[in-house]
């Protein structure tokens, strides 16, 4: 279906309240014509649940707590358990040291966005990877 919108879930795993990044990126994706589902604070179980129910193409995790490895690992494990790992494009953004990019990508994260990211790059990447 040509005119179907790309669907993105923006999820904030854990309890850390640094929200600016998640909100800024959500607006940009929405303005770029994507269907944005703002999950807000979600534990990983809730995040996967929303991703399935909302039938999204992209799961975005916004993490500024330093716990990005733990939360992402849990997400990937849960998706693997459900046999859904390849169904979503997984993106992680936030205060993520460059040293951790490789580990996250090896887990199955498609791209990681650290401090100083230009939001246009995220839009471009999603459009390239999700063909609708």
């Amino acid at each position, binding site marked *: 279906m040509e005119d179907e919108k790309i669907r993105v879930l923006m999820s904030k795993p*854990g*309890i*850390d*309240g*640094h*929200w*600016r990044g998640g*909100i*800024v990126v*959500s*607006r*940009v994706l*929405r303005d770029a014509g994507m269907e*944005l589902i*703002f999950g*807000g*604070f979600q*534990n990983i179980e809730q995040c996967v649940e929303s991703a399935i129910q909302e039938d999204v193409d992209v799961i975005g995790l916004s993490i*500024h*707590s*330093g*716990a990005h490895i*733990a*939360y992402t690992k849990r997400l990937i494990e849960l998706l693997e358990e459900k046999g859904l790992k390849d169904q979503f494009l997984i993106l992680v953004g936030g*205060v993520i*040291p*460059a*040293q951790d990019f490789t580990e996250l990508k090896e887990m199955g994260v498609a791209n990681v966005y*650290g*401090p*100083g990211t*230009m*939001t*246009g790059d995220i839009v471009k990447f999603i459009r390239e990877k999700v063909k609708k």
Partner: protein
Amino acid sequence: MWDKEYLEKIREEKEKWDKTIESHKERTDLPFITDSGIPVKRLYTPLDVKGNYLDKVSFPGNAPYTRGVYPNMYRGRVWTMRLFSGHGTPEETNLRWKFLYKQGETGFSAAVDALTFNGIDPTNPDGSPEVGTSGVPLYCIDSLFALAKDIPIDKISVALVVEPFTSAPVCAMYFNMAQMKGYDLKSLMGTTQNDILTMTVGYIPYKNVAPNHLLRLACDFIEWTVVMKNVPKWHPINFTGYNYREGGIDAVQELGFVFSSACSHIENLMERGYKPDDFVGRLAFHLAAHKDFFEEIAKYRAARRIWYKLMRDKYEAKDPRNYGFRFHIQTAGSSLTAQTPQVNIIRTAIQALEATLGGCQSLHTNSYDEAICLPSEEAALIALRTQQVISDETRITNTIDPLAGSYYVEWLTDEIEERVWKYMDKIHKVGSIDKALSTGFLYKEMRDAFHKRQTRLEKGEEIMLGVNKYTVPYDECTDVFRTNKEAIRIEQERIRKLKERRDNTKLERILDELRNVCEKEENVMPVVMEATKEGATVGEICDIYREIWGIWEPPLAI
């Protein structure tokens, strides 16, 4: 401030000068405006400075306090060097504090983790991966003993950076610890942030309660510590414009937010039957030192004048000691980059200079690795040395308010003051600060600020070297300080031991009493003091707030 005839002469000469420069081109890369969007002229002269010296500027320690709250300012003593720090466990944080103290730090400030902020115990799987990752975990009284070990807390002031949702339990644990170590609460010096806006719009709260309850909790704490004189030398609240300024609001909004919030707290306490003079002298502020050098300095000068007018005219405080706007400064974390982080040392030094030229009472300087991780010891030491270079090497402390009399700074001080009053009117029309939150007004202001700033960066209307000019890739350019991975286990074990030791039957009775107090309009502090002394955790106290008042979902705007 000048003779009328002489001003006329200046005006004539200025008109001539304006003509002579018409043919000189000006740069068009960036507009000549302040960070808050105030248009800036090419030149300021005596023509721009309105009013007279004694009414508007006057002397330090004298109304309207434009030049500083104390007559001697840094010639008496320099600002308190207070680095916001905390990571891993209370024991590790204690070591970092002692390290910085040895290197010349003169005040402590506890950065707590997300669980402590939100009243979540480390056994809760929703938050357990974040134990100690963004600050020090302070979940029970034992943590406070570990944090303050070998630190002379009667001689050095301690800032506990917790907000109204957890300020009662965390500070009660601190006060109990101090008493059990033999200190008189009346001798304790320190500050509790206790700022309603930090954990509502600065950060988004996780399972906290509604703003009207947060306002009540904040005021309970002010009432119990300073009005009732249980901890009379404490600063029971620190209106923290810094945290929301970091989201992208401008200098004018920053002051608008903090003053509107302060007014709501004062009015809440007046409704309880107290006079402003009973407590306003203990209220403190925490502002940002951001990127626009002169605008920030003008902001501090304007803030002192606005606060004086609020106290004298609006709240009719009688004691002049209650007119002083005392503030802590944090340099702007959001101005720092993960790209070429060494440049952050320069940014921070310039911002620290703003703070000190602006007459701050206390200062935190960010570490150069701020955009990537919690500060390493090396980065924190450079941040401290940055302040010491200013205090010990530059001689800027020789004279008070050295930028007074600058036509630009005086003009900008007036301009900011005027704009802040207008912005406060805008918030006031929505209602008290809890209403401004619950109606979503402040969330929309923040949302607009987020997007405005991001758009400016992406369009290159605001420069961040390394990010949108002289761009460099984000790479493994600095060592990353990692917090202790064992912190979860250590903190869970700490709670387990505490629960084994305590008298659970007695504690249940006290917690029941807390339920009653929450339902009635009584001050929560006495019973929270009792409960935390008996070993109640921060999570257990906050669970009672949640049970009685319900969990609040903030009206976020995207």
